[in-house]
């Protein structure tokens, strides 16, 4: 098959120009000033936004954990259904993901507003109005809602491969359901958990729409900060590149650590 190597050539060129070079340019912008001289000022300035980084990481972790807790039973139930029901059910679970992401977030704006549907319903039974929108909780909710399917899918695809007889064997050998879950199912689904966690964590930490639409502009996240430097109020691509670089490094480090738990790592990063 060696002769076929040349087939990759067009892609290799494309990859170099549109994946590698742009990332190098981010690094270049981060370490130079407007005249193109080397400087560490912008990277140093990123330290100023420590609280935004801390908040983003924290909210993303909360959203990821909630997604995992919500999605785990869903995937397990799905994987234990009858074969011909599984496909239909999976489609029903994934269907909302096909709606445009902005529209889905907008729907929550409608629901959570001070005069929104939830507060109206609560008002009818005499509670409220609660402050729902423009809070960190609303941002986390938006993340969970938008990224939940990203957690369900990898978990499901791992669990569906767990042989039913393994679980039966465990209970035959005296395991109660709880210890079956933690000693058989969970260890076998670790790769699914890992890829689910990264698929939720990465978009959650870098989002700027959800925080803007549901967070009311006072819960800035890293994504907002980057967007502000390139297309927003504070035009400063060098600082923006610096922040992007730091974000990228954080994510790559986290991914590397996560991958260590993954038994079959095709992906080195």
């Amino acid at each position: 098959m060696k002769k076929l190597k040349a087939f990759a050539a067009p892609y290799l060129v494309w990859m170099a120009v549109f994946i590698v070079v742009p990332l190098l340019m981010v690094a270049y912008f981060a370490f130079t000033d407007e005249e193109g001289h080397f400087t560490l000022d912008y990277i140093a300035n990123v330290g100023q936004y420590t609280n935004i980084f801390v908040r983003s990481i924290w909210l993303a972790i909360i959203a990821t954990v909630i997604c995992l807790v919500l999605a785990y039973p869903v995937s397990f139930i799905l994987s234990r259904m009858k074969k011909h029901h599984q496909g239909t059910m999976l489609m029903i679970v994934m269907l909302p993901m096909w709606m445009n992401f902005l529209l889905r977030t907008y729907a929550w704006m409608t629901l959570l507003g001070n005069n929104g549907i939830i507060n109206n319903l609560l008002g009818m039974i005499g509670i409220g109005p609660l402050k729902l929108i423009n809070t960190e909780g609303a941002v986390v909710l938006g993340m969970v809602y938008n990224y939940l399917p990203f957690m369900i899918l990898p978990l499901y695809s791992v669990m569906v491969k767990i042989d039913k007889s393994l679980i039966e064997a465990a209970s035959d050998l005296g395991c109660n359901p709880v210890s079956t879950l933690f000693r058989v199912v969970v260890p076998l689904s670790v790769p699914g958990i890992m890829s689910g966690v990264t698929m939720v964590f990465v978009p959650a930490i870098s989002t700027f729409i959800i925080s803007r639409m549901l967070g009311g502009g006072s819960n800035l996240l890293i994504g907002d900060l980057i967007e502000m430097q390139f297309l927003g109020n504070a035009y400063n691509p060098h600082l923006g590149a610096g922040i992007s670089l730091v974000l990228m490094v954080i994510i790559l480090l986290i991914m590397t650590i996560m991958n260590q738990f993954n038994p079959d790592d095709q992906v080195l990063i």
Partner: protein
Amino acid sequence: MKNHIFRPLCAVICAALLTGCSGAAGTGSGTAENAETSETEESEAQTLTVSDMDYYTRFKGQNLSINVYNWGEYISTGTDAGTLNVNAEFTKLTGIKVNYTNYATNEELYAKLKGGGTYYDVIIPSDYMISKMIKEDMLEPLNFDNIPNFSYIMPTFVDPAYDPDNAYSVPYTWGTVGLIYNTTMIDIPKEDIDWDILWNEDYADQILMFDNPRDAFAISEIMMGYSINTEDPVELTAAANKLKEQKAVVQAYVMDEIFDKMAANDAWIAPYYAGDALTILEDNEDLDFVVPKSGTNLFVDAMCIPKGSRQKEAAEMYINFMCEPDIAYSNIDYICYSTPHSGAYEMLDEETRNNPVSYPGNDYLDENTTIFVNLSDEANLQMQTLWTEMKSAENETPNRWIVPVFLLICLGLMIFVLIRRHIRNKKDIY
């Protein structure tokens, strides 16, 4: 007091509704409907008449196109019944295709232009952004021979502070910034309402604030008696501290979203632009609008041609077209801002013309309002830094070393895991 504004608006809406359906049909298909409604004044706007046909048709057949970059919802589109579709009319008349895209803030527009790689022919920035762009040599001087309709612009708006020789811009709309509030929730009499209401703890979590440093700083500067164009670092810092105090009572920092949130009663009070505020009052009759007595900012949005425009003459034709009385009227009718165009002003009904919110009179404008001009780079940078700091500030500022330390810990953990795995692999071999 409230009815004072509301009644003329009702008249406008009713007129629009009455003539609306027939008007929309008129542009679409035939002349029959047009004939029926030809007495009403709306239908005049429907059948477009321009001053000089030869001027507009000279590029016909050349397949030109121009890129127009405008604020969202800032041109008459013909979707609402009774209005002209301005861009479609322009293409029909001149044969020039219009690529029309939107931005949400002056800064977004600036970033898109500054970044390069974009070729716009007509942009509509606000006052201070125009002076910034002039200073940075980002605008083309206009050839006013190609814009004869500039003669319609009212003298007050010619040679403005942001463009002293009036070489680069043609005013499109203007207005003042005021407060929009919910009369059922706020029981302070209208004449007593001033900017400090935005700091009032009784309305905590019901206050919206501008998500834009220039507008937000202006409010706190007015309250503290500074000029809204101050470049004094001490005054800027003081204004920022004032904004920091406000953070505890603010529900959200928003711009355009104010429109929707106020209309849906999601908040009680917000600063907003007079023109948009009038449109919201149409939707929600509990709302009212007041221009605080301690003064405000007068804004002007004007049409410019950025450097790098490839179709300068066609762009000037577009600007001239926007100054055709019929078109200017159609736009102002749709946007509801105040017009600097004398022709369009004449076509407005009397009640709108006498509305003190839209047209408070030149004396009032001179005494109580100030126009933004561009600040020095240092002042801009300081304002920007103070703003981001204010927005990201929490009660306690975490140590700036947290992130680097966190990264180091991650790195350490990674190395540890790799070494452990390496050792384990070695063991496996034996």
